[in-house]
């Protein structure tokens, strides 16, 4: 599928109306406008802070944390999820712990991470990785455990050794759900990077947004928030593009199942 085909053109009128409403409301109600500068001004400001490079340094710091935290979570949670999915006794051992930790809002780990890791990058990467791990872990476990017995019996009747069974059957069969977990975690990673930067940092987009608000640079603050939204959107698009390419077989399969 081409990139152009993925853009939801039909939704553009609503998007345009939203931007128009933003522009008009802030221009016609000065009281609102004080805290809510017009869209056009925000985008001009965005261009200015990009041009001056001010925002780019913060974006680079945030993206680095994002990549480290997300990659760490993906590596650990996929590996752990595969082990827990494959060995039921291991899962039984860890199930209560997982069920207790999982519902806890992840930002609650920030104070603990500060105690142990300080206020630097390690802390931010760690809390991001922690929060991202859950959807990946649970989806991977479920993906492995829900592989159809017929498929595993087929692997058995063809006498695959455990190594081949893992690489050629278990992993590909569980991959659609692993990808689902990775996708959910993408948004979570960005949330945790921003939140941890807002709490304690001297760079990154989270810090930048809060700092701009505190110094009453309202236009810049909105511009930075818009930049965050755009980064989130771009990351998701990138993920979908990779997903469409790597998991083409699964896209085709599910598309076919949708057709009655």
């Amino acid at each position, binding site marked *: 599928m081409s990139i152009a085909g993925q853009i939801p053109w039909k939704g553009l009128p609503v998007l345009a109306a939203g931007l128009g409403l933003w522009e008009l409301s802030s221009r016609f109600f000065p009281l609102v406008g004080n805290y809510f500068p017009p869209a056009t001004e925000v985008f001009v400001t965005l261009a200015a802070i990009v041009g001056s490079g001010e925002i780019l340094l913060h974006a680079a710091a945030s993206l680095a944390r994002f990549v480290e935290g997300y990659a760490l979570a993906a590596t650990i949670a996929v590996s752990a999820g595969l082990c827990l999915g494959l060995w039921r006794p291991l899962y039984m051992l860890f199930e209560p712990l997982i069920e207790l930790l999982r519902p806890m809002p992840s930002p609650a780990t920030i104070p603990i991470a500060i105690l142990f890791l300080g206020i630097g990058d390690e802390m931010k990467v760690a809390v991001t990785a922690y929060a991202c791990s859950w959807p990946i872990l649970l989806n991977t476990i479920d993906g492995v455990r829900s592989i*159809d017995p*017929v*498929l595993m*019996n*087929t692997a*058995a*009747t*063809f*006498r*695959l050794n455990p190594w*081949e069974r893992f690489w*050629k*059957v278990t992993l*590909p*069969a569980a*991959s659609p759900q692993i990808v689902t977990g990775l996708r959910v975690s993408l948004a979570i990673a960005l949330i945790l990077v921003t939140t941890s930067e807002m709490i304690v940092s001297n760079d990154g987009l989270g810090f930048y947004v809060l700092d701009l608000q505190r110094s009453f640079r309202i236009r810049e603050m909105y511009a930075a928030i818009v930049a965050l939204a755009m980064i989130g959107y771009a990351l998701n698009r990138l993920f979908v593009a990779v997903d469409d390419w790597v998991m083409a*077989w*699964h896209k*085709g*399969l599910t598309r*076919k199942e949708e057709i009655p």
Partner: protein
Amino acid sequence: MLEVRALKKEFQALSGQPVVAVEDFSFRVEAGQFVSIVGPSGCGKSTLLQCIAGLSPPTAGRVLLHGRAVTGPPEGLILLFQEYNKSLMAWRTVFKNVRFVLENPANMKRSEIDAETQRFIELAGLKGFESHYPWELSGGMQQRVAIARALARRPEVLLMDEPFGSLDALTRMELEDTLLRLWESLHATILFVTHDIEEAVYLSDRVCVLSGRPSRLLEEIAVKLERPRNQLSTREDPGFIQTRHRIFKLISKELAVP
């Protein structure tokens, strides 16, 4: 060649009650034979095949392949399932699904593996579909892929668990004939489980009739119909009709509900 001695399979139902699926089942399959097992549905035919395939250990009794006891999936024996949509790898193309079983004991060169894969794809009537994914094909074509894959491994014994059970009547006939053609040209040995009496008679040298649960062997009936078989003339042959009649009577007694 394949021998089952006094096999018993018992398992726990969800209620905790032990259920005997198969009881005191003994029989032999000789090399090159086509043997079918028929019985009322739910009688434990699939359980029996799982035991023979070494996928599920029997509670009592033994399965012997060439005189060696089967304790796990043995070399030279492949079980083919009814659920082609689950047993085929959705992430591999038709070609790669078949190639897959030749990669595993990697004693062939790449080019040989590819040539052998292509040969079985063509034998199973799948030429032109090599680069399709299984889910792009009809049910009958998918089961052809599963058959090509199983036979490409050159098993001494192919076990088939109601392979055509979910196909429509015409597709089923087509596949029956493909299977017979492959069985003859490859000198394979096939143990075929079905609940379709006519299918069993049409395909087999011998039909084993099972009782309702717990499954016992009621009778082994030799099918003396000439080969190659033909969907019209074989099914209209008086011998075919008599054999079908006899098996039906045996099974209907099992089905009789008071």
